[in-house]
């Protein structure tokens, strides 16, 4: 029980939405990589339908090195949350702070810069560019941001995911697990503070999925990135520090698997 309390304190006194008396920023949680304050996302419905609320007043603060799993049924708002967290979309209301920058204040160029520097994405279907080799895929974010010596850093990341030997291979020459490891290396190549993973094991067998989860865990612990992973799998979620269960766009429950282990 003590362990639970310590973890919760370390995470900046997060509460399920509605229970927060004031925004985390005002609470002075300067270590938060991502803060979402009453973030709501509505999608306009068709003429004869009402609007769909994909995320409803979500409030949470994600800290450096924290591995959070988002679970819930399809349509519960996991992906919407990842999009808001990744500065790919704006909330209909509420606030999203990434490294103390309010996304609503940024223009397209600012958002792009934020993604380039602070955020890494991992997808269920790997999303490697088929015309680029493994190492070229990994160095792509660095090339897009104009960083110097991208190849060296890309190779380091590939080595980190134990794919250095296959750096020259094209995606179609790699297995699913290998492709996802390359995708993780790509997501980490620019040292992001926030790693967003959408069903990263959804397309992999159990053993390969475990390898990927271990890498994500290492990213959180060794590189200090906040990892936010959407998953359907309870087994995958169990690896995380925190499990946020979403239902109809609101937090249903927050659990801490580490405390129960």
């Amino acid at each position: 029980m003590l362990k639970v309390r310590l973890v919760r304190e370390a995470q900046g006194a997060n509460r399920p939405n509605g229970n927060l008396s004031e925004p985390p920023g005002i609470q002075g949680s300067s270590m938060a990589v991502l803060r979402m304050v009453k973030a709501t996302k509505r999608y306009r419905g068709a003429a004869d339908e009402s609007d769909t609320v994909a995320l409803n007043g979500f409030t949470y603060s994600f800290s450096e090195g924290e591995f959070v799993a988002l679970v819930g049924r399809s349509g519960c708002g996991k992906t919407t949350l990842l999009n808001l967290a990744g500065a790919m979309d704006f909330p209909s209301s509420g606030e999203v702070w990434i490294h103390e920058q309010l996304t609503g204040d940024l223009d397209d160029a600012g958002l792009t810069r934020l993604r380039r520097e602070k955020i890494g994405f991992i997808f269920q279907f790997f999303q490697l560019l088929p015309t680029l080799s493994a190492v070229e895929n990994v160095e792509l974010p660095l090339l897009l941001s104009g960083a110097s010596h991208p190849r060296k850093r890309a190779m380091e990341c590939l080595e980190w995911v134990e794919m250095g030997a296959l750096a020259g291979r094209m995606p179609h020459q790699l297995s699913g697990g290998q492709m996802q490891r390359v995708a993780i290396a790509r997501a980490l190549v620019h040292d992001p503070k926030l790693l967003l993973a959408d069903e990263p094991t959804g397309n992999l067998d159990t053993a390969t999925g475990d390898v990927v989860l271990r890498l994500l865990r290492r990213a959180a612990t060794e590189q200090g990135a906040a990892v936010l992973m959407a998953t359907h799998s309870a087994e995958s979620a169990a690896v995380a520090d925190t499990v946020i269960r979403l239902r109809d766009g609101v937090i249903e429950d927050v659990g801490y698997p580490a405390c129960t282990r």
Partner: protein
Amino acid sequence: MHALKLFERVIARPLIREPARSALTLAAIALGVAVVIAIDLAGYAAAGSFRSSMETLTGKAAFEIAGVGGVKEDVLAKLTSLPLPLRFDARVEEYVRDVKSGATVPLIGVDLVARAQRGMVLGEDASLSILDTANAAWVGNDLGLRAGDPLQIVVQDRLETLRVAGVFADTGEAHGPNRAIVVDLPVAQRLTHRAGLLDRIEVSVPESPLARQGETSIRQAMEAVLPPGVELREAGANMEANRKMLGAFRWNLRILSGIALVVGAFLIYNTISVSVVRRRAEIGVLRALGLTRAGAQSLFLAEAAAFGLTGGALGAVLGLLMAQAAVGVLAATVNALYVSSTPAPVVLGVGHIAASVALGTAVSLVAALAPAREAGGIAPVEAMARGRRDYDVQISASRFALAGLALILLGAALCWLPPVNGRPLFGYLATLLLIPGTALLVPAFVKALHRATRRRICSLLGVEAMLASRSLAGSLRRTSVLVGALATAVAMMASVGIMVGSFRDTVMLWMDTQLTADLYLRAAAPAPPGASPLMDASVADAIEALPVVEAVDRFRTVPIQIGGLPASFGFGESRLMLPQGRTHFLPGENREAILRKLPTGPFVIVSEPFSRKHSVGAGDTLSLPLPGGAMNVAVLGVYSDYSSERGTVYGDRHVFGSRFPQRAVTNIAVTLKPGIRLGEGARAVEKVIAGKQVLLVENRALREHAIRIFDQTFAITWALEGVAIFVAVMGMAGALVALVIDRRRELSLLCFLGASKRQVRALVYYEAALLGLISNAVGLALGLALAFILIYVINRQSFGWTFQFHWPGWLLAGAVTLIYLATLASAWFPARTAARLNPIEVIHEE
């Protein structure tokens, strides 16, 4: 019914959802078809009308009797006295200018009395009593005159006034405006200074079994009374030869107009390929649900047919508009080079609409065959596959390259074969083989280029260029088709540019050698190509007597027929050619020796087109048809000449002039004494020709006029090239839109990875830039090869002349830059589409 529903759901709906891309494909095929239809319609209108001009009042004659310099009237008397059931119609023909309208009209002299006796009266208001009046004329109703009106015409070098006796309507045989002037035979002879001479005698054989059986004996009987130099030939042989030449001209234009359609075919192929690739999963589902292999194929063939039918129908309408714009230019060329004619109205018939739709559909279906077959090969299991399958089906670049090389070698081999019936069919075939042959080499070329640049491109041009280059190399089939389309258009532009540029330069150089005199004179009356109106020789004598004049060349040209082909025989002061002219002879021939020998006897030199058409060269003997009978002449040499594709035989005036009954000339070239200024000389000559209908042209003006005709001849060619390039660039825009739609996942992913909108836009622009670069490079290489075929095979075999190869650097650089900029501009809409993609929607769709 079910098939229609399936078509609507699987094919039509997606096409409607992408209106820009569908419209671009449709426009490409419509334009391709329109150009072909326009050239045919305009060609028909421009050339078709010439039948009506000099053929007015020609009956259904079986034979005609004609001779160089005319046929003496007593020949007609001998013929009519033959105990044969034949009818003879004598004619005198000349082109004149109607002063009021400025139009060139045929003046036809016929025996009106004989015609009246046979009941062939010209017009309802015609009265034969008018024959008592000198200068009575019947005019075609399109001249806008009425009986009793005066009619002023320029005949040869004189102004004459006739009186309209009657107006006759269209005879029904005519295809163009009815503007002929018909006068009685003696009036025509007087007006044209051909007293006692006829131009032609038409011979009609009445329908009877006897006549049919005895055709040979009838011919023999007539030939027995014909004097030397007068020949009996099939009726309309001259016109037929002209038609053949005009046919070749139209055939060349047709081939050129087909290029836009070939480019359109490339683009249809690309459109259907994209359709197939994009709907692989859907087709997989349909196959799993019971759609047969043939059914899947039919769906995509139906898509192509829909494009073809709609594009073809639109093409017909567009073709009509283009034809109306082109007919004037085309008619001017036909008039300058082939026959005197007035353009007829452009009429779009049901046949043309049907042809247009059939052409569009056929080209689309042929282009869609390969992608449709691929659709048929989609297995039901593909429905189960998640994720996007790449557009590109792996193609073997080396296998394609081998096939391409084989086609190119075959094309090269065909260039050595002779023409078929005077048409360079193997040359055309070689051109047609070279285009797909080069297209097949493109995958290997792109791969090699990619390999050579892959390490450097990122550091040189940035990550966007690197991604664009990878995308192109990764989608070899799509890239190859697009490069094929644009390169074909660029190649045709380059090859025609090189050919026309070379031809133009050669003609300019040739004019330097030919036009050495200071002033040139000719009768003001119009003349059909290959002939010139006569001028009184006394004009030349008077000019020669002027103190400012150094020398006068009296030149006369007469149309002749040799071996059934029209040609020209010209004779002038050949002694002047030695010091003044710089006439070029074919390599190996001694110019000075030839020109020294030419005035000394029955010797001639022949032009290069004549030499090629009749296989005659130095040392050969030629039977030259002259008044009074054929004359055997020795050919001393072959000279370069670009004035007529008919070919010219040239001899000395003092040797051949005496064979012609009239002492007349067609052209006078005046060389002024050294130190005499051009203006001073021109004024002195003007005084001599005052009151005469003679045109005086300075050397420079004559050159400018010749170049103007030259440029006008090729104006339509440039327009065709322009349309082909427009179609290709439009196709490029459509293909880039398709490319953006196909690669929206990758483009969206880049946004997730930190790419800005500007970078996404830049990527699309780089793809267009690289495609343009490769297309221009391939197009220029192909264009160079095609130019060699055009210059050394097609032109030589079609027209018989050789010209020096000239690389019109500035023109090509300008055109290629323009095309390149157009290609870049075509990426504007696709780039905007790419930048507006919603990455979240796209990534989660997958």
